[in-house]
């Protein structure tokens, strides 16, 4: 297992390199001078040249890229053009917020999604099943932005149960976590339902029932564990998605997370910060997938990691 993890991590190196190269090329191909974003509307060409020189933007692209890689190897992501703060510090300051938001919405998603999925599967074709699946479909289809505004309007402004936006306390996290979480819950519910339905039809479940086990035991001990494999895949993919895809939620709820930082960096053409957030996100993604693969082995001994 350790060998497997080490090998997977080693394989990730070219992936990260590829990501940095593609980001670097894209940033330099897209028109728009970062210095123009920094200076005012009247700045003269000399000032622009000066700043370009200071930031090393006049060096050949190869030199700039190699410098970035060299620094990356030393664990240095460079300094933000705009703030002059270390990129790693800016990421370290915002990532925990995004992680908290992701994890809390993850909990909401799992709790809601798996429960509804199980109920739907067990009560297949019942009114409850249909109702829940329609709700899930609506959940998947509704834009996050819209759900967020409606939630703010009802639970924030009208009922006053939760703060409308901001990031000051645990209470501020509830609404965003529910908004972001219910969306994934809908997806998880549908996956859980179909996976569980597949498993329930298997012979070993019939055997379990024939042995006289209670329905509860059949579902929770025998069926659910196996039904969870495709669900875990989705969960793993969603975790990375939650981390990186919370941009809209962070914007609407004014949460200072990594998503907003990366959008800000891009709008400012802050190259080191964009590179930094992209590399960091790639690493999170790779780790997320690795965790999913490892968890397969725990769920299903038939999956051998070689």
């Amino acid at each position, binding site marked *: 297992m350790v060998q497997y993890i080490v090998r997977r991590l080693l394989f990730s190196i070219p992936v990260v390199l590829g990501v940095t190269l593609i980001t670097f090329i894209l940033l330099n191909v897209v028109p*728009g001078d970062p210095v123009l*974003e920094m200076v005012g509307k*009247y700045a003269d060409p000399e000032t622009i040249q000066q700043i370009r020189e200071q930031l090393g933007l006049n060096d050949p692209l190869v030199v700039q890229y190699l410098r970035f890689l060299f620094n990356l190897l030393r664990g240095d992501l460079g300094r933000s053009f705009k703030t002059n703060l270390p990129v790693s510090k*800016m990421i370290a300051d915002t990532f925990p917020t995004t992680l908290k938001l992701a994890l809390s919405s993850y909990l909401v998603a799992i709790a809601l999604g798996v429960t509804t999925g199980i109920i739907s599967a067990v009560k297949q074709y019942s009114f409850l099943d249909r109702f829940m699946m329609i709700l899930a479909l609506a959940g998947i289809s509704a834009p996050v932005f819209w759900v967020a505004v409606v939630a703010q309007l009802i639970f924030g402004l009208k009922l006053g149960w939760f*703060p*409308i936006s901001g990031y000051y306390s645990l209470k501020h996290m509830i609404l965003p976590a529910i908004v972001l979480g219910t969306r994934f819950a809908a997806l998880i519910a549908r996956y859980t339902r179909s996976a569980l339905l597949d498993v329930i039809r298997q012979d070993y479940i019939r055997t379990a029932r024939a042995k006289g086990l209670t329905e509860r035991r059949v579902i929770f001990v025998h069926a659910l564990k196996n039904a969870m494999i495709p669900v875990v895949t989705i969960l793993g993919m969603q975790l990375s998605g939650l981390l990186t895809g919370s941009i809209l939620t962070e914007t609407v709820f004014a949460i200072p997370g990594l998503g907003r930082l990366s959008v*800000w960096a891009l*709008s400012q053409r802050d190259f080191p910060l964009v590179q930094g957030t992209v590399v960091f996100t790639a690493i999170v993604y790779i780790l997320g997938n690795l965790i999913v693969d490892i968890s397969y082995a725990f769920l299903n001994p038939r999956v051998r990691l070689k």
Partner: protein
Amino acid sequence: MRKVLLVAVLIFAVATFFAQTPKRGGVLHDYFTTDRMTFDPQEDTTLQTYAMARLLFSTLVRYKGETLELEPELLAKMPEISEDGKVYTFELKKGIKFHDGKTELTSDDVKFTIERMLSPKGRGASKWLFEPILGAEEFMKGQSTSLEGFKKIDDYRFQIILKEPYAPFLYHLAVPGASIYSEKLVKAAGDNWRLNPVGTGPFRLKRHVPNTEIVFERNPYYFEQGLPYLDGIVFRIVPDSTTALMEFEAGTLDVVTIPVLEYERLKASGKYNIIEKEALNTYYFLMNMSDPKWSNPILRKTMAMAINKKELAEAVFGPRATVATSFVTPGIPGSYPLGQGPAYDYNPEEAKKLVAQLGNIGKVTAWQWGGDTLSQPNIIIQAMAKEVGIDLEIIPVESAAFRQARREGKIPANYGNWWADIPDPDNYIGVFFGENNQMSSGYNNKEVQEMIKKARVEVDPEKRAQMYREIEYKLIREDVAVIPLFHLKYLLATQKNVHGIIAHPTGITVYLYAYKE
């Protein structure tokens, strides 16, 4: 009876006096849509950073309340100007302290501030503010180490000598980008300066939590007795305008910029104070006079007559917009009064006749700043052009790319807006149509450009104003270089207990006199 009346009048007078007397204390809750991650107005020229600069720093002169009239701020009195309009003599107020309560403001700080902006090694983004000063060019190029046009007389008095007379120079000194820094404190802060500002302004920075909030507290050493009234101001970073409005309605924000669609509802509710203020801006449709197609004056004139400005303004900004007939915003010395400018009126019949003269010109192009779909104003302009027979294609271009192309003069035409930095026609006409302009107007009428140069240095205000009106007539009526569309009002709503916030025509919100009941 008389006595009773007198007493009643007295009581009323006293009551009004107390009702209007600002109350000291309290914290104001406002917001910004983004965190600029800097407090240095020399580097960042956005209205947001400028609004914060008015809290943190002071300028030599400032606008008097809501007006466009200047008054001394750090100065003891308005500067004396020599007859030839070149030498300005200044005197600083004595005993002005920076936020640390120790460092005192002197003439050297003013010199340092100007040189920092102009420094070839710095990141000064508004060099234009000090460029009229003698020797600025040499200094900017690194050919001199000291600014020739700055003469220190003593710690509180100094002279600034201009290259040539330039009437709006004093306005430059009121722009927040010209905020005065302390040489000692800037040097001590080094690279951290942009996030650790120390000024002489009414408030000082208490806390900055990136992308979350910026907290200011009253400066106990502020040089104006009794000001500011507020104990502090908290700016939360709320990127989404709908969210901000909900926070405002929930009472957690004291101020909000009114979204166009919500204006009527907020006003009708009677629950809030509404601040409506004419601002120095013009929304326009600019056509590149050097573009192969737009170089045709008949096409430009057709376009000018095709746009129904009233309909466009109402559709896009509702009550916020006023139809423009001139490019220089009314109210500025040298501008045309509202509604009396030289712009062409909407005249679809005439436009259709002109199109017939144009013959088959095919598709003409305009660019849009950012976005991936067409913005509402562009959709309307396109439809109006189509109605008279112009096939106008509008291409959305990502903002950074747009900015770069604009600098290079490569934009064929575009709908845009200009918020002036100073109330002077040169800030419109010189910027857009002078030689080497960076606004992609492609303007190439040498005669008018000569006139622009002359108007710039004219000392007699009356004569100068007349010159600009003449130039603008030629620009808009004869050359149809730009189509002024409308001017936008500054619209803010505040909670009922909030008073004294000034929405200044320059677009900057001033909190110095703000208070909460």
